[in-house]
């Protein structure tokens, strides 16, 4: 696949979903402003550390991942039939097309997470960059898994969406509670395990999406239209 084709697919998809992306960013700004950041007074520094992470990561991880899932589902068949048709009839391999199609919702989800982070910053609760990286890794993994829901129907689609929920929950749990012994290295362990988990899940999600896209049946037998 040429860079030009990749750029054309990504920019055209982003342009087609510009209203949804704008809406997602506006919603992220509002939620970023109103998300509660306060924690109860805790004297034990380790408990306070876990409490901070649990409160500060909950918003961006769950909210931005939900937005990532929604933006991924917006790429589903039928919504932009003219783009689906153009991409499918182009001389591209399934895995190339999968990569290109995955970039657009990932960029949109990144934008949403950035707006969320900026809103937090403006409201006086600037989350540390590490938290942003953790949230972003979670959003990428969830978005890539959610793309699978666009190429399957019925039970498999429900399974893909269930895996999205599982991915967010697992990423959140790892980044907050990964260190069961509450050692001084809690942050490092949490960050490392969450990033590793999200990288593996994201890679598997993208790979499966490529497979699903290669075997995707665009025809709806009940209506005879793709």
């Amino acid at each position, binding site marked *: 696949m040429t860079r030009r084709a990749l750029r*054309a*697919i990504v920019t055209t998809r982003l342009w*087609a979903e510009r209203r949804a992306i704008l809406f997602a960013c506006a919603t992220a700004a509002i939620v970023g402003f109103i998300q509660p950041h306060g924690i109860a007074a805790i004297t034990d520094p380790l408990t306070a550390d876990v409490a901070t992470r649990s409160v500060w990561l909950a918003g961006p991880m769950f909210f931005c991942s939900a937005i990532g899932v929604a933006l991924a589902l917006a790429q589903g068949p039928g919504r932009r039939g003219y783009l689906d*048709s153009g991409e499918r009839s182009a001389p591209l391999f399934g895995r190339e097309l999968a990569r290109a199609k995955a970039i657009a919702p990932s960029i949109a989800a990144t934008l949403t997470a950035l707006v969320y982070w900026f809103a937090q910053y403006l409201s006086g609760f600037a989350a540390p960059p590490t938290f942003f990286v953790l949230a972003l890794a979670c959003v990428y993994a969830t978005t890539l898994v959610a793309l699978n829901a666009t190429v399957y*129907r019925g039970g498999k689609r429900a399974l893909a969406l269930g895996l999205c929920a599982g991915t967010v929950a697992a990423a959140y749990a790892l980044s907050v509670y990964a260190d069961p012994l509450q050692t001084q290295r809690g942050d490092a362990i949490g960050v490392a395990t969450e990033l590793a988990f999200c990288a593996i899940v994201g890679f598997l999600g993208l790979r499966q999406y490529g497979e699903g896209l290669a075997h995707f*049946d665009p*025809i709806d037998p009940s209506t005879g239209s*793709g």
Partner: protein
Amino acid sequence: MPILRMRDASYVSHGVTLASRVTLDVNPGDRVTLRAASAGEAEAVAMMAAALIHPSSGSVEIGEYDSRVQAAHCKRLVGFVPHDPLPLREMGFDRYIQYRAALWDIDSQRARAVANVLLERLRGMHEAFAYPLVGALVANPAMLVLDRPQPTDREAIAAAAGPCAIFETQFGTEA
């Protein structure tokens, strides 16, 4: 040697047989119309002919390539025009041609020049149907595959396609 060679090609979608044992050849310069029993069959056969889907059984060869294993090569030889019109509010002509040119890796200037000539030949045809046809032809395919085109556009399509072979599907009153 035929550009399209279908042998007992069947397509089953979610347990429903849409196309059953279709056998046909399309040679260079031919104009072939397949009259389908249902819209689903028309769409399935057109998509198989353009290597967009693989036959569930039987074989589809485009040029020298097997569509099941060399779909990307097959798509270089085919220009596919879907049944649905292009939503003009979403994409203007120039933007659409640039998009198609990028996907097929065709020179932008050349694509624009060819597209304007083709659009001129299709004057009178509704833009929502003309743009996808022009988009398919700018890549200079050996065969044009049309899924249930408007019967009234038949002459205009033939004029625009020139020496390119045409394979179209039709269904019901469209046929």
